[in-house]
């Protein structure tokens, strides 16, 4: 018998083990939900799966009388668009500023303390200010995401740039590189995969800000819907929506990982073991 730390489950066993906790959770939910419904058939808090499936199917197929669109898809499209624009702007800004800050000490000196302080401001606390400054349109929601995640991305990229062995910069200079070329050909390509992996980390926060912003001012979107039906404690809508958000988040996360693995194989050398 090997030591516990050396015991590695095989592929099939790993899949089975991975499913185990989810089945367990489903099982517990079913039990509690059934118990609550036995006591109060109108219980709204933990709806039965059948009920959730029905509601969700309705939201995914029946057009809304007011807008003429199907709620689930309209909400998803709206939210994904905001998320995409917000995260996209943040990523580009972070790459540019991370590169400048990581590459040029003279830029870093004034910029880095500022961004540290900015990253510590909780965006929800300045939500009222954001809405007043940027109105209640699409802009404000995108801005909340940008304000929320960009400082984190910039700090991370700056740190990554500083962690690159100084030998690389020196090497490039001995090969004739100018400052601009060092940033373009040494720093930029190595920061890009890091940007992807940090963005994956930041996506959780991005969703959070999106939902918070949609709760306050929006007419469609996943966060809007959850907020709207929260007044009725309509968990048969909320829970499938949460599951749907989680699924979307998971797909985006994995897609980014695949893109990164495929485009930057050299970046992922060390993490093979982690899979």
């Amino acid at each position, binding site marked *: 018998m090997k030591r516990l730390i050396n015991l590695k489950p095989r592929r099939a066993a790993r899949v089975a083990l991975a499913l185990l906790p989810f089945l367990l959770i489903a099982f517990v939910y079913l039990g509690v939900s059934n118990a609550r419904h036995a006591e109060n058939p109108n219980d709204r808090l933990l709806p039965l799966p059948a009920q959730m499936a029905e509601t969700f199917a309705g939201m995914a197929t029946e057009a809304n009388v007011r807008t003429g669109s199907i709620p689930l898809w309209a909400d998803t499209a709206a939210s994904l668009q905001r998320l995409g624009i917000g995260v996209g702007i943040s990523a580009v800004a972070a790459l540019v500023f991370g590169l400048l800050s990581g590459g040029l000490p003279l830029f870093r000196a004034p910029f880095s303390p500022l961004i540290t302080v900015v990253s510590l401001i909780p965006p929800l606390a300045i939500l009222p200010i954001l809405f007043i400054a940027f109105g209640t349109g699409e802009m404000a929601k995108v801005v909340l995401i940008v304000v929320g995640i960009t400082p984190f991305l910039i700090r991370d990229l700056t740190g990554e740039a500083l962690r690159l062995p100084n030998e690389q910069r020196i090497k490039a*200079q001995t090969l004739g590189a100018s400052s601009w070329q060092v940033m373009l050909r040494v720093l930029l390509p190595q920061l890009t995969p890091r940007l992807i992996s940090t963005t994956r980390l930041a996506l959780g926060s991005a969703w959070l800000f999106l939902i918070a912003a949609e709760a306050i001012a929006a007419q469609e979107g996943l966060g809007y819907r959850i907020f709207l039906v929260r007044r009725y404690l309509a968990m048969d809508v909320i829970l499938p929506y949460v599951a749907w958000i989680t699924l979307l988040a998971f797909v985006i996360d994995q897609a980014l990982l695949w893109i990164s693995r495929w485009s930057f*194989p050299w970046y992922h050398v060390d993490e093979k073991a982690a899979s």
Partner: protein
Amino acid sequence: MSLVQAKGLEKHYGRDVVLERLNFSVEPGEFVTIVGASGCGKTTFLKMMLGTESITRGQLLVEDKPIPGEPGPDRGVVFQKYSVLPHLTVLGNTLIAEELSRSKLLGKLFGSRRRQAREAALERLTEVGLENALDKYPHELSGGMQQRLAIAQALMMRPRILLLDEPFGALDPGIRQDMHELVTRLWREQQLTIFMITHDIDEAFALGTRVWVFDKWRDDPHAPEAYGATITYDLDVERNREDAPSQAKQIEEDMHS
């Protein structure tokens, strides 16, 4: 006019004196090999030559002008580690020198100019025996292959001065021999001036036209940091190659005691 000259050169880290009393003058085309105990300041000296480590006292002159305080294309380098760019393939790592000097804006070549540069890079890569690994990334290479790539990369620029920090430490004897021959040939052909650090005294004598031994000039057991290393032996080896083995033995014994 000598190419590199040091006058009373010193390097301190805070109160630690690492190097002091460095005085030398190196002519163009010399091949200086440097040996010395671990931690005596050989790499530090190389960094001063590169311009990445400041000079505490004294002067370090290249062609009678103070050495530039930053690295430049006139001084090529191969480090002990981190010497190739991890995000470029073997070919990319070799091409980049040409690309940086020929395309100021993008640092990238396309079309016929790229094809030309590729020719040159291929030739160099063939010399170091990496012609079959063009599209591999550094992490896919063994330590020895990485080091060979670093040498090919550094030589693409045809620098006047080449700085090598234990470049062959990771190579097995067969390949090491090949590299010795390659470096010797390029040194002759391109009329390089080379400073090479090595731990292998035989290698130092086999390659160098001049062998330097770095060592503390005085040792105070109560204040080991008070005195720095300097060049304790400066041997001209080209003119009397026959003595080399016995000299090597002598130095090896000296260092061991």
